[in-house]
């Protein structure tokens, strides 16, 4: 009989499904950041939450919550998931952007500048969907507030490579925006 005896199992709650404590802690610690990463890519809070839920679900099914790679895995999944959504919807976005510009034009004090901003945002997001996935992920992760070290962990490279990757990604995005702008 050793101390291992007491490390077993949990008592399931009778009504609501009880998730492992470690998983709930992970959710609590990372959910907001995962949503923000997706939101940087998508520009839409509802869609970003959907992507975050998907990312946590994929992790929940296949990985132990206490895994040391949990947070970087979720960050990368949020970026990839959001980019997939972005690529899938880019035509729809173009239509919605036009609608949004019209709505903005009728609703804000400076309709022209708001409309221009909306259009620019749409263009940048369309460009983000077209540049290589790794570059787009680096931008999404870094712009959502992750440190160089956290971005490096999420995409699986050394931290000292992030500066270069970030510059190249920004250059690629700028070129893509100009090409279509």
């Amino acid at each position, binding site marked *: *009989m*050793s*101390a*291992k*005896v*007491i*490390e*077993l*199992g*949990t*008592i*399931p*709650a*009778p009504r*609501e*499904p*009880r*998730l*492992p*404590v470690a*998983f*709930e802690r992970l*959710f*609590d610690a990372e*959910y*907001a950041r995962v*949503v*923000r990463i997706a*939101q*940087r*890519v998508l*520009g*839409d*809070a509802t869609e970003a*939450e959907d992507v*975050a*839920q998907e990312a*946590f*679900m994929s992790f*929940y*099914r*296949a*990985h*132990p*919550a206490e895994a040391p790679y949990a947070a970087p895995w979720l960050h990368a999944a949020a970026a990839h998931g959001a980019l997939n959504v972005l690529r899938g919807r880019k035509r729809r976005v173009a239509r919605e952007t036009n609608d949004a510009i019209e709505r903005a034009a009728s609703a804000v004090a400076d309709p022209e500048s708001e409309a221009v*901003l909306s259009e*620019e*945002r749409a263009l*940048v*997001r369309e460009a*983000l969907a077209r540049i290589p996935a790794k570059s787009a992920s680096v*931008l*999404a992760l870094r*712009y959502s507030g992750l440190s160089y070290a956290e971005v490096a962990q999420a995409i699986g490279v050394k931290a000292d490579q992030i500066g270069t990757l970030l510059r190249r990604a*920004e250059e690629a*995005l*700028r070129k893509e*925006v*100009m090409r279509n*702008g």
Partner: protein
Amino acid sequence: MDDTKLERLLASDEAPVDSAAGLRRFRETVGAHAVRGYAPPARRRWTQALAAAATVAVLFAGLSITGVADSFFTIFQPKQVATVAIGTGDLTGLPDLSEFGTLTVTTQPAYRQAPTLDAARAETGIAPLRAATLPASVTGDARIYTVSRGEGTFRFDETKLRASADRVSRTPPPMPAAVAASTLHVSGGPAVVQSYGGSFDPKADPRSMSAGAPTLLIAQSKAPVIRSDGASFEELRAYMLSQPGISPRLAAQIKAIGDPAQTLIVPIPMDLASGKSVTVRGVRGIFVGDSTGLGSAVVWVADGVVNVVAGSLGEKELLGVADSLR
């Protein structure tokens, strides 16, 4: 368009994220679609199963008062072994003993390598059984290890249980006064382990054992003894069987064991292994076959010693080794 502008354009109105609402939604999805969380690989589940065996043995073995000098009386001292079949749900639903009280290891078992079986015998007082025949796949000499006697106490703690239940908004069955006031004294070993092929390190995390695992283990340990200074076996059993994590099927199997007073219970994960009764050296024991091909084991109790022969061998080979022990 500069980088700052690019970054600004990728920003959006960021309302605060409601993590609690996110978690509620996640729980609802898990519940509505019966999503199964991460399941550990087979080897790890085996580890859980073995630990579960210890848990079940501790909690559900029978009462055999043998007259101990102090205020403790023996509630568990196995003289035979039996299996109960458990499903994955049973395994994850087993109560977490750490929520019920505090385990204190009073004598940490120490293990070390012994040069010969005779030296191991002198150290432990156990007469090691020697294999007269070995399958061709088992090569080389055995490495011999001894494990010294370990002891610990488990003190039930109702306050601790209530605190952990409050954290997950759960109401556990009330802890009976007799249980709440009890301390269990648990002892096990000493033991002798003979390991062929690979390496055996009792201190290593079993989850990390892989290709380097031994092909054959022959282990003998003085049977564990559990004593109580308060609650009787019946009180402990009734209380633990009332826990929501114990399925009716598991409870029924435990209640059906003919001589619970002296029976070491080994749970068999149904989806991974099967168990059956065998006779080893004239004694009734159990054979556990692992359906994943990882290995098998035979366990029997004789003269106060629990014997285990386990390895990555088929049933016939493994029982052949067990029967050849002298």
